[in-house]
């Protein structure tokens, strides 16, 4: 089946989209026309520049609305989130660990590289958690080590080995110039170089991280905005159980 969809303004398939952008062109009729042409070139018919303003001698700003025939087929879209709809609550997770693994799960987390945005990893790991969802430290069956900010990948791996961790959690918030991609890739390469990749379940998280991206980069799972400890716990339990009894349990 195919379900072709287009943007919707006020009539099905009108293809209405709002855009704004800056052009390195002085403000004036020429700039305005350049902006219109640019929007047309993106595949919009009926490109309308509804606002133009000078930003400086050489730059000008535009707001435009356009209508396009470009469409996507939503039936071909398959998005795998790290977890399904069904999540363990904290108590369920602990029960599942006791029952299915029979030992505590050890988790090491950090905000790596030069990234110092700890609020995200803290939200997942710290006692008090986030938005009334407790963090992993509060899980009786989880031993959680949060190494904090700006931890080099090397050091994180060393620590994980030291405490014999089941899982490594990495947070990356700064994404400018794709620094997060570089940093996340480096961790996987280091693990592989040291023959440790299979030893841990490795997860990445952050505002701009998706499961898709993380998996592409060689992680077991990825977690973006709106993640709570429950998501991570659910994912880890499933993976760890799978490691013990592949495919089954």
């Amino acid at each position: 089946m195919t379900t072709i969809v287009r943007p919707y303004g006020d009539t099905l398939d009108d293809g209405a989209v709002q855009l704004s952008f800056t052009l390195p062109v002085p403000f004036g009729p020429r700039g305005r026309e350049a902006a219109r042409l640019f929007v047309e070139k993106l595949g919009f018919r009926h490109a309308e520049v509804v606002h133009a303003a000078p930003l400086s001698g050489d730059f000008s700003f535009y707001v435009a609305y356009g209508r396009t025939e470009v469409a996507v087929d939503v039936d071909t879209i398959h998005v795998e989130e790290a977890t399904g709809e069904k999540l363990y609550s904290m108590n369920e997770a602990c029960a599942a660990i006791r029952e299915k693994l029979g030992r505590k799960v050890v988790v090491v987390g950090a905000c790596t590289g030069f990234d110092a945005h700890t609020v995200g990893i803290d939200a997942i790991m710290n006692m008090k958690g986030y938005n009334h969802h407790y963090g992993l430290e509060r899980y009786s069956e989880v031993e959680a080590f949060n190494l904090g900010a700006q931890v080099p990948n090397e050091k994180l791996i060393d620590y994980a080995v030291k405490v014999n961790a089941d899982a490594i959690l990495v947070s990356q918030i700064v994404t400018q110039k794709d620094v997060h991609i570089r940093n996340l890739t480096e961790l996987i390469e280091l693990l592989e170089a040291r023959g440790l990749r299979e030893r841990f379940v490795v997860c990445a998280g952050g505002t701009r991280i998706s499961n898709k991206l993380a998996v592409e980069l060689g992680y077991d799972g990825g977690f973006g905005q709106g993640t709570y400890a429950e998501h991570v716990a659910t994912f880890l339990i499933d993976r760890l159980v799978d490691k013990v009894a592949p495919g089954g349990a």
Partner: protein
Amino acid sequence: MESRLHMPQERIDRARELASRIVAPVQEFIDAHTTVTVERATLRLAGADGADADGIPVPNLVIDQLSGRLDEGALKFWVNALVRTGEDVAGLNRKVAEGLRVDALPLADPAALEAKAAELVAACTRRVRGNRSLREERLARYAGKNHSPLLYVIVATGNIHEDVKQARAAAEQGADVVAVIRTTAQSLLDYVPYGATTEGFGGTYATQENFRIMRAALDEVVEREGRYVYLTNYASGLCMPEIAAMGALERLDMMLNDSMYGILFRDINMYRTFVDQKFSRMINAWAGVIINTGEDNYLTTSDAVEKAYTVLASQFLNERFAFAAGLEPWQMGLGHAFEMDPTIRNGFLMELSQALMAREIFPEAPLKYMPPTKFMTGDIFRGVVQNSLFNFVSQMTGQGIHLLGMLTEAIHTPFMQDRFLALENAKYVMNNMADLGAEVEFRMDGTIVKRAHAVLEETVAFLERIETTGLMDAIAEGLFADIRRPRDLGKGLDGLRKKSDGYWNPFEEHLHRELGL
């Protein structure tokens, strides 16, 4: 509520007294006249509906047959036709659409007509009362679930079925009121189109079927969300009473209904509008509908700083006309607007002042506060800021009905996302500074207090001038919105009739009784 602006009550009383003296002679004129649409509205209340093969509505077909005898009231001929043909209302509608001439049937015994009319009035009353009590019941059941002020959005796709999607989404997002804007120029049609419509420009035709479709769609959301959603449409134009009648039958909750808007902003003849608004307002009053007046239009046409007094003056006149039509204060959604040039230093203080002034002068009215429109530009981001300040003032001054500003006001009628962003803006701002108004006091010597006093003074002076000139001549001379509308020009004058001595309208009589007029 104690006055935060220290408004002089004596000047407010003076303005009300002037309004009453200005309106009185107009009211005399009104009571002596009827119009084609008053008659058609009466027919609609009596059940006339449908259209012929060319799309001419049944009420118009009837009126066209009667043009010479309209001064007797059209209902007589309709009731007579029912009696003579023995048809029920639906059957007669069909017959008339097929060409039956009601004026060709000999008149039956007056007592038979009276009896039949009483039946029709009773049937209509049951329906309207049913609507009214259903609304009251739902409002009571879901009390406290609406926002205060009520968040009001418009839909205007031109296609009733798209409107439904948009309205539903808005209602789910928290809109309390949905208004279906009419297509450009419907207000100049001297008939109300029939059936569901999908082709309009800048709005969707107001038809009874469209009203029904939207009411049903919103009622679904009402039950699902557990919150009443008010439905609004526009009475204004050449068919004020008819649309009011349709609104009463289909449970609309609010209607745009201004005593002078059609004259000034649609070039409708003043006699015609004055007569029409009275009848339409009586219907609104009876149906428990909240009217929305159109003072905002003064400010989109003229300067909002200079002409603020025209708004207040118009509010006093609209209030007076409303009382005369039996509306209660809680039904008077008197209009005003946030329309000052945003580049004015301390313009916000003046807006705040005026909104609070209106609040204090009309403490019981659910004031309808209109968003920035004239100074909205294609800069949607600045537009969002303008709307935030508007939301702020509205909450701070306790407005009743808050029409949401759209970031795309200068561009197109709202997209679904525009409305969503508007609701989000309003809900955030109004919740975040909810009780600010209750905590602050204003210095006596400041702009806020002084501006309100000055506008009231100008208003009183303006009303004095109108009183001297007479309202009709004042309009003719262009005292309102710089627009001159001579008495005998404008659309729809040919639809005016002086009532004959034998004028018979049992619905009008019924309304007078019910409203205690």
